[in-house]
């Protein structure tokens, strides 16, 4: 499978356009507030779509379809339980403090509410994390383009060996994201994110349409798949009776409470988009507006995975569609549906699991679906949708990184009291070396897969307790800086200890857990272990923060006005029409999510 000229035109038009948006917006970026917070002048619906789009990285589009193919519609728990309630909570209850305190970043809120050391822990771990995540996003995109072989023939045309596809993809994506973020900062990232949101939808709607039509609609899909693939909640009473290997309590507490609130309510990557809003009401509406498309994204990103697994195996229909098998890097002859088996790079043979079954390469679900259904023309649009998702994720990380670096690390610990122009310059520099480090991280991921796995594990430990700190900080005036700091450190340690003493069933001790020698408990699946690690970390942080706060000196209440719920005036929204009030929006969103859960019970 190779790209035709029409696909090339579409992809090039998109790439040129993204950079032009930055160039046009450049003249609006004069101060550091313009660069880092888009001048706090963006309307709510734009912030809302950027909010969702910044989160819609590679992991979402490729990973959620992979997970849909692996676990079925239960993957939607990552949306309906693992995102919507937290998004409503951050909009209704937390945004008043983020936006109202005039903090310029999430770590800066921690500085205002607690103390310098709590901010430092959060700012430094967050900065490192964003650089690595954008590197991983770059790596994933380059690997995908490489394994699809779509760029091989254009490369051959210019007499360049196809072995450079990885390098060119990494460098090109880095240069494009760098260009548009450097030109105009957050506003350019936000405008591009909104554009990317619509492109992702435009690329995936026809895919789902053709796929569903092919398998005979939702009814046909249900008939072709095992029962637990099309029901989200059945079997969750017991970890052994559902494909996730999780029981409902672990799911609701671990994913629905600790992990999801920890991400949506404290991650500056998304919160930054709401901070750019033009008013407090707009900032509060941002996550609520974002939650509406988020709720329906499972139909765009999970369904392709289900369809990919439900299609007849390609060996049987070779004649009917010769393209897919010729196109995909790995022939799906061994595998299920149009998802091929993973091939061991050293031996060239399919990888087998402990039972001797081939391990499927679920990450190829979406790319193979695109190649299977899209003719030239639309295929270009499908690839643009993939590129858009990778780039929005990357740019989200880069803009969050340059802000935290400049405000929370550079201005606080390296160079205080400089002019605004100096910090604007620093922000641009931070963008450049942030992207440079991401490129480096992409190559580290390529050479040493294990290092990336270790890092992601460490990030999970650092993130797990965060929400306890924010919850106590915002809703308990007695919480102190020492308490918050000790809570974060011990919470992270608690996560590491829990992971070190437990192991998912059938896994080897090592990265999967059990590295502390003794295995105290076996979990039915890795997902269950992750959820419980989060629950432990959160509880340790919560209790430690309360305990240490009670034995340390509280801050004066006058200093906490605008930072803590009980000391802040309630926001009056009587002047807004009812459907614009955040509270009524929040209730409507929760109701819709409940209905979706019921429909796919």
């Amino acid at each position: 499978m190779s790209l035709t000229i029409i696909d090339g035109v579409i992809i090039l038009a998109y790439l040129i356009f993204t950079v032009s948006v930055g160039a046009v917006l450049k003249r609006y970026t004069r101060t550091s507030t313009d660069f880092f917070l888009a001048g706090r002048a963006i309307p709510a619906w734009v912030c809302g779509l950027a909010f969702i789009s910044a989160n819609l990285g590679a992991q979402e589009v490729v990973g959620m379809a992979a997970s849909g193919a692996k676990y079925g519609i239960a993957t939607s728990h990552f949306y309906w339980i693992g995102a919507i309630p937290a998004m409503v909570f951050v909009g209704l209850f937390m945004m008043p403090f983020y936006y109202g305190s005039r903090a310029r970043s999430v770590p800066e809120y921690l500085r205002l509410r607690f103390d310098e050391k709590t901010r430092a822990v959060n700012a430094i771990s967050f900065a490192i994390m964003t650089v690595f995540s954008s590197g991983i996003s770059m790596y994933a995109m380059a690997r995908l383009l490489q394994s699809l072989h779509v760029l091989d023939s254009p490369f051959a045309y210019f007499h360049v060996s196809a072995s450079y596809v990885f390098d060119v993809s990494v460098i090109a994506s880095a240069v494009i994201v760098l260009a548009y973020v450097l030109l105009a900062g957050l506003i350019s990232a936000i405008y591009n994110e909104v554009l990317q949101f619509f492109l992702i939808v435009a690329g995936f709607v026809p895919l789902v349409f053709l796929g569903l039509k092919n398998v005979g609609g939702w009814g046909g899909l249900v008939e072709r798949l095992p029962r637990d693939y099309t029901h989200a909640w059945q079997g969750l009473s017991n970890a052994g009776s559902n494909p996730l290997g999780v029981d409902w309590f672990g799911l609701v507490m671990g994913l629905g409470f600790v992990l999801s609130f920890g991400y949506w309510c404290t991650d500056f990557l998304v919160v930054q988009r709401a901070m750019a809003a033009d008013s407090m009401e707009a900032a509060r509406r941002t996550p609520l507006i974002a939650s509406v498309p988020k709720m329906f994204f499972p139909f765009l990103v999970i369904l392709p995975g289900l369809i990919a697994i439900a299609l007849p195996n390609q060996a049987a229909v070779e004649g009917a569609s010769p393209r897919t098998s010729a196109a995909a890097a790995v022939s799906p002859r061994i595998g299920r549906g149009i998802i091929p088996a993973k091939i061991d790079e050293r031996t060239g043979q399919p990888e087998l699991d402990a039972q001797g079954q081939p391990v499927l390469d679920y990450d190829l679900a979406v790319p193979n679906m695109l190649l299977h259904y899209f003719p030239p023309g639309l295929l270009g649009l499908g690839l643009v949708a993939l590129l858009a998702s990778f780039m929005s994720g990357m740019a989200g990380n880069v803009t969050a990184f340059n802000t935290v670096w400049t405000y929370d690390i550079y201005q606080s610990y390296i160079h205080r009291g400089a002019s605004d122009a100096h910090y604007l310059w620093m922000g641009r520099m931070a963008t450049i070396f942030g992207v440079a480090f991401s490129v480096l991280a992409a190559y580290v991921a390529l050479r040493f897969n294990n290092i990336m796995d270790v890092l992601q594990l460490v990030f999970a430990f650092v993130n797990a307790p965060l929400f306890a700190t924010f919850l106590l900080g915002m809703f308990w005036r007695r919480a102190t800086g020492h308490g918050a700091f000790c809570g974060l450190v011990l919470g992270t340690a608690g996560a590491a200890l829990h992971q070190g003493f437990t192991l998912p069933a059938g896994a080897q001790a090592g990265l999967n857990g059990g590295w502390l020698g003794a295995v105290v408990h076996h979990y039915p699946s890795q997902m269950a272990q992750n959820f419980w690690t989060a629950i432990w970390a959160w509880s340790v942080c919560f209790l430690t923060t309360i305990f240490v706060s009670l034995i340390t000196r509280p801050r004066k209440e006058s200093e906490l006005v605008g930072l803590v719920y009980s000391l802040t005036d309630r926001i009056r929204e009587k002047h807004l029409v009812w459907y614009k009030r955040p509270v009524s929006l929040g209730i409507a969103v929760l109701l819709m999510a409940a209905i979706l859960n019921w429909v796919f019970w």
Partner: protein
Amino acid sequence: MQLDVRMPIGLLFGFLGFVLAVYGLFSDRDIYRVSLGINVNLGWGLAMLIFGVVMFFFGWKSRRAV
């Protein structure tokens, strides 16, 4: 804010939709075997073109109002 985000969205979707629809009109029917015989380029291209024009129109209107 000077530039309404709907204008760039309208421009890009209008352009991509136009290109896809024109390509759909003149392309060989054979390439649509993969898409169940449906000329998706023409259909989806027109849909994107209409979306682009609508977005651009509203973006343009709000700009003149300011």
